Every structure is written in structure tokens, then in C-alpha cells.
């Protein structure tokens, strides 16, 4: 007989039950199956009401993040076998509001992303006739690591400060701010600093480092935040000791 493993999945169906509860499903323990395959098996073969997000099933879209045995993980990149003999607990990402079953509300995260202004900001747009904004491979390497972020939000669920301080802008947003701060074509650093060196910004981080541990794309948001803190400190001392220099 085929070996099986039990998945304890957190359900939340607000129009039927006011509180989340757990439901157990027995699924085949197949080699090469990831957690997402097991969830898809449940949905297709056992219980079509189970709700969760996924899209690419190859670690690119960032939508399949869940807590697997209380640790944030991309379910399409986490092998089921690692959890044998089970049971495996699947719950929605920590610190987010739950919409239904394993689907969390991303509104708060979207707002935080916006605070980081992760897009190219230039003082004056170059007219088309002047051609493209050129960049050397070295200049690209400066920010490339931070550009790998897929907005999976695992780092938010891993960060205790996110849980304690609702205003904290959070790891990915700061890493993405650095993605643009270190881009040779960008001129938006002052704008971002203003938002991110204040309340709920980079200094709320206490360097727990879990964000970098769970990041599936090796973005190292913790490192990005530390670098940002140092930049912010230099700026602060400059504004105090050399106020005449002002903002560039």
C-alpha cells in the first residue's frame, strides 16, 4: 500500500464558523511532491472547498507562502518528504489577517511597499531623444541581490518586530527601497530616507535576522536594513554637524 502522511490544515470559513479550526487530511507521501502538490491533491481529490493561493509552482510568483510546522515557507519549494512521518501543520502566514483558509490579506503589506517607494525616481525625466539610461554591469551588481525579491512576504511572518509593531514597514519593503537606492539611475534616496528613517522605519528593526533565514531568494533583507541604518546614521550626523550642506 502506498505510504501516506497527514496534513493538519487550518481552515477558516468566516460565514460558517467564526473561528479558525484544524482539519486533517491523509495524502499520499510521494517522492518529489512538494507541500503544494499535497494541497492540490486535497483540493482535487478530497475537499474542493480548501482555499489557498498559488500560481507558478516554481518559486517565482511568491503567492504560495504559508506556515509549514510554524515556519514560513514557499509551499511549492518545500518537499513533503522532509516532514515524514508527519503530521505536517499548514497554517496561513503569521501576522496577517486571514480572508479564508490559507489566504491572507495583503493590503497592509501593499501599503508598506508603497511607503518604501520601490520604483525609479528621477528629478527630471530624460527626453526620449537622449536615449536609454545606461548602466554598467558593476552598477547593476550593486542592487541586483535586492531585486530578486518576489514579494512572498515570508520575511514578514518570520519577523517578531512585524508582529509587535504594526507600523514597522518590514524587511522586504526596506530591501526593495535599497534596490532603488543603490541603482545608479535613481535619485529618490532622500525621499525614501524621509519615510524610512522615521517612526516604524529601519530603526525599529532589532536585527533578529530571521527574515534572511527564511527568504527563498537570498535577498538578505536583514543585511539591507543594517546597511540602511548606517547610511541613515551618517545622514543624521551630517544634518547636525553640517546643517548648511542641507539636502542635495
Amino acid at each position: 500500500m502506498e505510504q501516506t502522511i497527514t496534513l493538519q490544515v487550518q481552515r477558516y470559513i468566516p460565514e460558517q464558523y467564526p473561528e479558525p479550526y484544524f482539519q486533517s487530511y491523509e495524502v499520499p507521501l510521494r517522492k518529489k511532491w512538494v507541500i503544494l502538490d499535497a494541497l492540490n491533491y486535497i483540493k482535487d481529490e478530497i475537499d474542493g472547498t480548501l482555499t489557498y493561493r498559488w500560481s507558478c509552482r516554481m518559486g517565482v510568483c511568491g503567492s504560495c507562502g504559508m506556515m509549514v510546522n510554524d515556519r514560513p515557507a514557499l509551499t511549492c519549494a518545500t518537499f513533503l518528504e522532509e516532514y515524514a512521518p508527519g503530521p505536517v501543520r499548514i497554517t496561513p502566514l503569521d501576522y496577517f489577517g486571514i480572508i479564508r483558509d490559507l489566504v491572507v490579506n495583503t493590503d497592509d503589506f501593499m501599503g508598506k511597499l508603497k511607503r518604501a517607494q520601490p520604483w525609479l525616481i528621477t528629478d527630471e525625466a530624460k527626453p526620449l531623444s537622449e536615449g536609454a539610461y545606461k548602466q554598467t554591469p558593476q552598477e547593476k551588481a550593486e542592487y541586483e541581490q535586492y531585486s530578486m525579491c518576489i514579494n512572498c512576504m515570508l520575511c514578514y511572518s518570520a519577523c517578531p518586530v512585524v508582529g509587535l509593531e504594526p507600523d514597522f514597514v518590514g524587511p522586504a519593503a526596506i530591501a526593495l527601497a535599497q534596490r532603488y537606492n543603490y541603482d545608479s539611475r535613481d535619485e529618490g534616496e532622500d525621499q525614501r530616507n524621509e519615510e524610512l528613517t522615521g517612526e516604524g522605519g529601519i530603526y525599529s528593526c532589532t536585527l533578529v535576522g530571521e527574515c534572511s533565514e527564511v527568504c527563498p531568494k537570498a535577498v538578505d533583507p536583514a543585511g539591507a536594513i543594517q546597511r540602511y541604518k548606517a547610511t541613515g546614521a551618517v545622514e543624521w550626523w551630517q544634518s547636525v554637524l553640517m546643517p548648511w550642506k542641507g539636502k542635495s
Partner: protein
Amino acid sequence: MAAKKHNDPFWWTLFGAGGTLSAFLLPVHVALIGIAIPLGWLEAPGYESLRSLVEHPITRIYLFVLISLSLFHWAHRFRYTLYDGLMLKHLESYIMVFCYGGALAGTIITAILVITF
């Protein structure tokens, strides 16, 4: 929604400097005075020579900087320990006065000691 100007970069600078200094230098002090000399691996310097070392202006400055920055490192870390560990963020202003005030008091006492020693 621009955030208000914050003094966190200032406290963080003291925290970072204090952390770096104490992490590198305090183990050396502990190893020398706490382990190597009591165990007889090194000859004890003797009261007179140690005193003249400490009386040297550079040593005075060194001790002042080391002690003061270490205190500010403690203050910042303890502030966040109280916030996050004990969930006391709502007492923010009292905690800041207690932590940084404590470090400042320690700094003043250190200053008096290294000057009058």
C-alpha cells in the same frame, strides 16, 4: 505621510559604536585581568605600574570612551528588550529616560572618576 524627524540614528550610532568597541576590547580586558593574571600566565603588573598606566591621559580617555559607549550600547539594547521582550512599548518615554538617562548618569560618573583619579 512623511515621518517626523527622529533621534533614532543618534542612539543607534552610540549603540553600534559601543557594541563594536565592547565586543572587541572587553574580552581582552577579561582575558588579561580576569584569567591570565590570576592564573599566573602573566606576571601581575603591580599596583604602582598599573596606577601610573591608568593615570596617563590616553588611558583616561580610553577608559572613558570604552565605559561610556558600552553603557549606551546597553541602554539601546535594554530599551528594545523592554519593548519587545516585555511588551512595554506603551511606556516608551519612561523607558527611554530610564535607559539613556542611566547611560548618561554612568557617563557623568565615569567622567568625574577619570578626571579626578
